[in-house]
């Protein structure tokens, strides 16, 4: 709890607290070739991932994708059929959960209802035979850390959802675990509280510097909070990248469609050059594949309706405006391309701008650097 001390002011930081802390105290996680099957169902299918020291890593995927199974393997509650998990240099796959030194937060908080808030927080400290006076002090500090100072004597039933979440969070870090695992911890909260807690959880992580693995199915939450996101589907890791790269450079159709809104158009590739219905499409890096049939991935907010000729760094195509929908902060235009393909364009609402009439021909431009082309037609 050295870092916690720091947050309560320099007065508490004694000379003995200069020891290992922050990112030195945290541990990297190295997962290799994890496989877990339940009957014929592959919950995890040859999963390998490296989580850096002090990193906030989010496992993002739909339900049943294997993200929670992976978290439970890290926690020690699920034993995989195969593979290796290392915390730092140490192989921990055979260690029981209570010897792994991890903090855990569950979706339903899993607070102990037969104990007070303070007793909940003291539980891991008592197990570590911390002295009574020190327990009291650390519990108080942890409560301050999550802005629940003075509520130690409350029963769990007397707390609101957000307060319970904070207690669960404080309980998971009070014993200075080296790794923090969170399983959809905010999904039971209402929207406003959830967004506020996202920042608080992230701030807590930054303050403690603890390696954090966070499971969610909410892409916005993942994009907001994470250093990196691992997108998981059908027991396989699809892509591991920082939020922005994941959004701008999806490597698979699943990632492209799971994060944000995407539309697909077929492109043909010959001699390393892509063309969309006969028009050339430029990319800022060579295509990853030479396959003839590939797919252009477009996001509505990357496109804009253009009057003039294309800029040097832009691609352009033409289409027919079918309909425009006013959504307050933005206007979404549905545009038919080459007869039977439809894409959407999102433009910011401006009162001085008028939109083309439905049925009229429009020119669409987008940046070469935003151009993502994936091999295949996306129907696997």
């Amino acid at each position: 709890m050295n870092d916690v001390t720091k947050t309560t002011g320099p007065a508490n930081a004694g000379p003995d607290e200069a020891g290992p802390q922050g990112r030195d105290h945290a541990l990297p996680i190295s997962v290799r070739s994890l496989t877990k099957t339940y009957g014929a169902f592959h919950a995890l299918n040859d999963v390998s991932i490296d989580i850096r020291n002090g990193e906030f890593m989010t496992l993002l995927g739909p339900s049943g994708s294997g993200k929670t199974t992976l978290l439970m393997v890290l926690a020690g509650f699920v034993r995989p059929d195969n593979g290796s998990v290392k915390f730092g240099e140490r192989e921990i796959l055979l260690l029981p959960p209570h010897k792994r030194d991890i903090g855990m937060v569950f979706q339903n908080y899993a607070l102990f209802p037969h104990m007070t808030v303070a007793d909940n927080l003291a539980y891991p400290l008592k197990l570590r035979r911390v002295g009574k006076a020190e327990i009291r002090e650390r519990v108080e500090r942890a409560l301050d850390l999550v802005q629940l100072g003075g509520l130690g004597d409350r029963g769990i039933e007397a707390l609101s959802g957000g307060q319970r979440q904070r207690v669960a969070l404080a309980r998971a870090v009070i014993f200075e675990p080296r790794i923090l695992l969170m399983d959809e911890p905010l999904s039971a909260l209402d929207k406003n509280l959830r967004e506020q807690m996202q920042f608080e959880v992230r701030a807590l992580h930054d303050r403690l510097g603890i390696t954090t693995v966070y499971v969610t199915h909410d892409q916005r939450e993942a994009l907001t909070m994470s250093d990196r996101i691992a997108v998981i589907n059908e027991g396989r890791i699809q892509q591991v990248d920082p939020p922005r790269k994941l959004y701008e450079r999806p490597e698979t159709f699943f990632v492209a469609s799971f994060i944000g809104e995407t539309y697909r158009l077929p492109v043909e590739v010959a001699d390393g050059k892509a063309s969309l219905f006969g028009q050339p499409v430029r990319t800022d890096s060579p295509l990853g594949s030479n396959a003839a049939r590939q797919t252009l991935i477009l996001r509505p907010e990357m496109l804009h309706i253009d009057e003039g000729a294309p800029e040097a760094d832009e691609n352009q195509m033409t289409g027919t405006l079918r309909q425009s929908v006013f959504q307050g902060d933005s206007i979404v235009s549905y545009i038919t391309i080459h007869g039977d393909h439809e894409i959407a364009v999102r433009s910011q609402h401006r009162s001085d701008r008028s939109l083309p009439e439905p049925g009229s021909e429009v020119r669409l431009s987008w940046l070469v650097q935003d151009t993502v082309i994936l091999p295949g037609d996306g129907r696997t």
Partner: protein
Amino acid sequence: MLNRPATDTQVTHLQRLWLYVLCGLVIFFLIVPTLLVIPMSFSDSRYLDFPPESWSLRWYRAYFNSPEWLQATAVSFQVAFLTMLLATATGTLAAYGLHATRARSSRYMTVLLTLPMIIPVILLAVGIFLTFAPVGLNSTIGGLMLAHTILAIPLVMITVTAGMQNFDINQEMVARSMGASRPWAFLTVTLPQIRNSVMSGALLAFIISLDEVVIALLIAGGDKATLTRRMFLALRDEIDPTIAAISTLLIAFSVLMLTLSQILQSRK
């Protein structure tokens, strides 16, 4: 009041009178046979008769002055206590295990463990007698304890399973992640929250053992005869109001225990 409805659709008490009469009869036939022994036990007569012509405590004196009856009582309570310990431990663990596991086989295990409730006790008794004979468990406290535990485990299991329905197993996982071994997590997190159902299960186990007579008739001989066995034999040999006195004491004891159990349940 009785026959004037407050609204058009209200059913008056008069219209429901038949229901009250029926319920009254059901309760009467359920309870009166049990209560009959109470006045009989205070009779001065040498035979079991009702209603008693004069009153005395002589049959209570006869009971408390008889070494055989007191010996049988001691056996019964020893067996009941040991049964309670064993059945509560195993029944609770079984309920916990079946709750914690998601295996499909757990449903079959539940059926298997509740089987002793379905099989006629007399069959069970014969089976137990034949199993115990070669290993010398008949007519021992240990043998009686094991036999009664078979009967008591399903009751404990059902009570504890009911108490566990609202328990969130994630709590135990959190405790384990914080450094508690699984047994310690069970003792400090799970058990305190299902304590009352475990205790009422224990009381049930105690009473089941104390009241049990069929198995005891077959396997509890000699100086290890239980109270119920001795009562049954006494009833056959001589019609002695001492039995009524003992029955009254047992009823008082059972009612006390069951009341305790109900109080514990309702405080869950």
